């Protein structure tokens, strides 16, 4: 049965808080003010669970189908290695390595590149974003440059980076950093632009100077948006990593996959894809945690 047509239970968000008690158990934030701005009904626990079980079943079915196809030997392992072979590769690359480095070394090098790029693009992107968000001049200068940069695929500017900056580590980091720059700067700008004017007015009427408004209102207000930008940027960076490692790399997950593909070692290719997907998942999860800790108010505003 479709989820849309069933009446759904929804969390008890709108009891009226007795006036002169402090927060009671029934007292849920905020929702009582505007009765019609209710949170959308959420799926009940049982519904969430059944979806999860179906997901587990799906994954099992997919793996089983894969294993079966591989076991039947209809296609050669070059085309479709068995799940067991991929798992074995995971172990062997972890312990013995592939193309002269272990999995952990490849992973470490790749992560180092992405994080170096992240730091570089934060250092450049956040001030640029704040300039765009806060001043007409900043917007006039940086907006067209960013809008030009944003849609260009990394592989298109990579040849230029190679000619200009060589094939060393800086070029790889730069390619990734450029891909990260636009999301970070544009999110920072959106965050600054989206600062609630009333909050700024409030701060000023409470005696804050302009500098204090920037430090105590604008920056904290923009933080959730900056973190969102960071999340998008990490995704973009991780995607660009494999491209960057086309540049004369000797280590890295992207390099590992490409080398494996050139030698038709399909099980390492598939294993690498799983590792890349896994790391992306972990990064995304980590940033969500960071967001929850750093800006617990985001989305409840």
């Amino acid at each position: 049965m479709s989820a849309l047509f069933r009446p759904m239970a929804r969390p008890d968000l709108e009891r009226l808080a007795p006036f002169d008690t402090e927060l009671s158990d029934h007292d849920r934030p905020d929702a009582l003010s505007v009765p019609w701005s209710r949170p959308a009904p959420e799926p009940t626990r049982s519904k969430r669970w059944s979806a999860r079980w179906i997901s587990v079943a799906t994954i099992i079915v997919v793996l089983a189908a894969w294993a079966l196809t591989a076991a039947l030997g209809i296609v050669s392992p070059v085309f479709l290695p068995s799940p067991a072979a991929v798992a074995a590769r995971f172990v062997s690359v972890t312990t013995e390595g592939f193309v002269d480095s272990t999995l952990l070394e490849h992973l470490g090098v790749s992560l180092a590149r992405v994080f170096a790029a992240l730091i570089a693009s934060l250092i450049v992107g956040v001030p640029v974003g704040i300039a765009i968000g806060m001043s007409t001049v900043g917007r006039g200068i940086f907006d067209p440059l960013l809008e030009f940069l944003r849609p260009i695929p990394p592989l298109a500017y990579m040849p230029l980076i190679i000619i200009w900056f060589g094939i060393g580590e800086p070029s790889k980091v730069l390619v990734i950093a450029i891909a990260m720059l636009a999301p970070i700067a544009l999110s920072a700008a959106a965050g600054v632009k989206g600062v609630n004017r009333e909050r700024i007015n409030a701060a000023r009427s409470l005696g804050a100077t302009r500098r204090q408004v920037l430090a105590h209102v604008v920056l904290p207000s923009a933080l959730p948006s900056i973190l969102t930008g960071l999340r998008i940027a990490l995704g973009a960076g991780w995607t660009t990593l494999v491209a960057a490692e086309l540049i004369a790399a000797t280590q890295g997950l992207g390099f590992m996959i490409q080398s494996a593909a050139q030698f038709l070692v399909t099980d390492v290719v598939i294993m690498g894809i799983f590792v890349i997907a896994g790391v992306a998942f972990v990064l995304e999860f980590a940033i969500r945690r960071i967001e929850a800790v750093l800006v617990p108010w985001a989305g409840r505003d």
Partner: protein
Amino acid sequence: EDLKLTIGYQTVVEPSKVPQADGLYEKALGATIDWRKFDSGADVVAAIASGAIDIGYVGSSPLAAAASRELPIETIFVVGLIGESEALVARNGSGIIKIADLAGKKVAVPFVSTTHYSLLAALKHEGVDPKTVEILNLRPPEIAAAWERGDIDAAYVWDPALGQIRTSGEIIVDSAKVAEWGAPTFDAWIVRTDFAEQNPATVTGFVKVTGDAYADFLKVPDAWSTSSEQAAKIAKLTGAKVEDVPLLLKGYVFPSLADQASDKFLGGATVQAVTATSEFLKEQGKIDAVLPDYGKYVSAKYVSEAAASN
């Protein structure tokens, strides 16, 4: 002082792999060397252009293309004329038995490389319009993979990919033949001019070690047999099968250090060869302009000095 040197090499089977494997260059030059492996000359040229490497191994075609773009490079050592070591192979069952059959087929070459050049030259010699052939830009390892899958009908390539695809294909023509048709190709070592100016002794030293290896091979070529340790070293660095190495070494015509300085090579003919290559590339629309003089991209100075120090 501690000199750092970056050298770009390719997986071509030739004698200098032996001193490279033995670490003789480091010893002779007193330098730390970062050896970078490249799949084709175009990548080497890009790396040299950006200053990322100091000395690089390229074929005559990328060399001509780079010189025509006036990159600050110098040719310091001619590895040798390419003979049977680069060849056009047609897949069994593709129906290709001669060059004219290539029309409408998929033929893979690494762009800008000597085999790209040789393919174009061969097509021209046989009167086949290159536009009728689907010429795909693949690097040698990608050619091997695409071949395995049956995606391409033919490829003009060198070892180790050549060795792999030859087992299920027929050689249609090789570079020795194309050279006879008036389009010879060769491989060479090039150096960044600014690096050479600052470190002339290092360059001479490099040439000398290289030349010694060639001399060693030329002295008794048969000593580098399948079971020799030289063959094993070469196989390890290039990925070629060890039993193929002796034959592959015969795929080149290696000049001796003494010949290098003569007018047959760096002393004269190399400049003409680069000029001729450039002219052909221009004719094929691959480069824009041919320089009036390629003299400054070729230098016999280092081979002369190296030969003199013997």
